């Protein structure tokens, strides 16, 4: 007699060594789960707050106001001929997304240990979900930005066609960094304390409050090694109708993709130990 379930899927469990490839088929088969986890993240985010989703609008607006006041008015940081508010908001768009996504992704595994120790699921989804959730905030911020642009009577140029690509690069960088930090935090809980400092420092080495042109040309390649540098500069070029700084953008893009690969592979390499040490 042949097997009762001839179509059965075989799972072979055995010790594995070294680097483990990303199981794309499994990720694809479970894509609905990622959807549910992202939905949970979004639904829970502003639960039991008075203002609810309005926070997604208020947060970038407050940041814009404070930065405009302190860095624009008092410190008089140049803003490449655009109103400082528009200038800084264009930088805050990718930055806020990145910092939220990385911070939450970094904590995702240690704050939901039962997802590691009580069930098997494609674990990459756990840190990936807050990145997806942060995307919703980003979309809302774009809406607010449109209003800010209208208020300051700024008209974007043809460069806006680059925006989807720039967003993809930011997602790649955030996901890569999030996976890396999530995996590191499982083993070394020190990263829970490191991440907030790291994000704070990262903002100052990213051209969020200052223009890339403030950095001397011969050091710009170093700035571009920060994936956010090229992205933020690209956002400004797109919305403030200015030429793109292609060398900076290309280096940052390459670093973003590299970061994503490093994050994914480090995650896969350490994943099999997660349940043992969580």
């Amino acid at each position, binding site marked *: 007699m042949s097997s009762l379930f001839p179509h059965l899927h075989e799972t072979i469990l055995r010790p594995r060594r070294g680097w483990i490839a990303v199981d794309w088929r499994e990720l694809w088969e479970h894509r609905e789960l990622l959807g549910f986890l992202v939905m949970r993240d979004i639904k829970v985010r502003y639960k039991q707050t008075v203002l609810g989703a309005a926070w997604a609008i208020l947060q970038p607006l407050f940041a814009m106001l404070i930065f405009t006041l302190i860095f624009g008015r008092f410190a008089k940081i140049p803003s490449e001929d655009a109103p400082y508010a528009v200038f800084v908001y264009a930088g805050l768009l990718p930055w806020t997304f990145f910092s939220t996504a990385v911070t939450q992704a970094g904590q995702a595994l240690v704050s939901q240990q039962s997802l590691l120790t009580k069930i098997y699921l494609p674990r990459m989804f756990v840190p990936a979900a807050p990145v997806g959730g942060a995307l919703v905030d980003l979309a809302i911020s774009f809406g607010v930005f449109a209003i800010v642009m209208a208020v300051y009577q700024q008209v974007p140029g043809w460069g806006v066609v680059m925006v989807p690509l720039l967003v993809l690069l930011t997602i790649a960088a955030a996901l890569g960094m999030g996976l890396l930090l999530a995996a590191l935090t499982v083993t*070394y809980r020190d990263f829970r304390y490191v991440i907030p400092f790291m994000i704070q420092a990262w903002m100052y080495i990213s051209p969020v409050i200052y223009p890339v042109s403030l950095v001397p040309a011969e050091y710009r390649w170093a700035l571009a090694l920060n994936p956010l540098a090229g992205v933020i500069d690209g956002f400004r070029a797109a919305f403030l109708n200015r030429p793109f700084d292609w060398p900076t953008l290309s280096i940052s893009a390459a670093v973003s993709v590299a970061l994503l690969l490093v994050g994914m592979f480090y995650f896969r390499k350490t994943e099999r130990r997660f349940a043992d040490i969580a």
Partner: protein
Amino acid sequence: MSKPAISVENLGKMYRLSHQGRRADSFREAITNTVLGPLRRLRQLSGREETMEEFWALKDVSFEVQPGEVVGIIGRNGAGKSTLLKVLSRIVEPTEGRAVLRGRVASLLEVGTGFHPELSGRENIYLNGSILGMKKREIDAKFDEIVAFSEVEKFLDTPVKRYSSGMYVRLAFAVAAHLDPEILIVDEVLAVGDAEFQKKCLGKMKQVATGTGRTVLFVSHNMAAVSTLCGTGVMLERGQVLATGPVTEIVDRYLSSGRSEVEGKVTPSRPHGASIWITRAELTGGGPDGTSLRMGDELTLRVHFEADPATARPRLGWVLSDASGSRLLCANNRYSPNPPLPEPASEGTVECRLGMVPLMAGRYQLSLYLGDEVRDTHVLLDALNFEIAPHDVWGEGKTPPQGVSAMWWPSKFSVDATETSIGL
């Protein structure tokens, strides 16, 4: 001949135990610890430290499960049951050997994994179902059934944090009960919920197991549940398979194997994150050697603990149950008078004098719950397994009849004759 649904070959799982928390005995040592500690811990966390002790939670485990078989995994605490289920559920990776699973696997090691307290019952059904491996359309198709089984229709749109614990468990189990895998792995989930719901769950499990030709691996401390549900038993001891066979034989063997455990063989390791944990436990009686227990003996339980940080109030609870898993008695010094130690200690013994417990002859199990003022940090289910031997409790040359009740009762009878007049 069909291929086995599960074949396990020489499976082994090794953990490295690090001996952490070496206490500084001097100021100089405290300083060196502070400076060198991070370096040592870095080596430890990255798994490169050589001095760590190896501990095999599973070793050379081999068995096969045919499609449609319902297998009960039996064993004491630390026997490796949970590790085995975790390996087969893909949660942890084996250190050696291999296992092949043929079919879609769903495992249920915890009720309500991934439930979010802020989300409504409806949202959690989808989330939890998806985490357990169901597709959205499967959940759609079974949604009404799940809701009916859980009996929480009215609160479907209420956040689950407002649910009573009973409702929470019912909803969580309802989702899991409607999984449709070819292989189902279940760990001790029936230990939650009220008796009525437990019965319902057991019924559902039985239906799942027998009605659909599904392969089930089931772990429970409730021997009655294992006997009703399973056809085959696998008994584990110290990470190895001790016996496999028809479930009745294996359950009998399990129930009669624990004799030596009374003498304090329970030497578990510290659970992760526990501030106080059990290092040894023993139950002694009044028999000549203090260890063989007879009906009418005064029982004394001693639990040795270690604590970090030191504590003055170790809290010990115990539950005594009979061979079938029915709980007979419990006590806990969280609720009964027990003055704290004069100063905090990092190790010690909690002694509980049970006094004379009027148990009938038979096998009993004692579960231990050690913790702090707030919660239990170390739980050992059925940690002590012991036998009470028949004994002439009244010195009348007779023993109370077996099988009538769970206990005999030390009561005093007296008979009075009433004057009756015959010539009414």
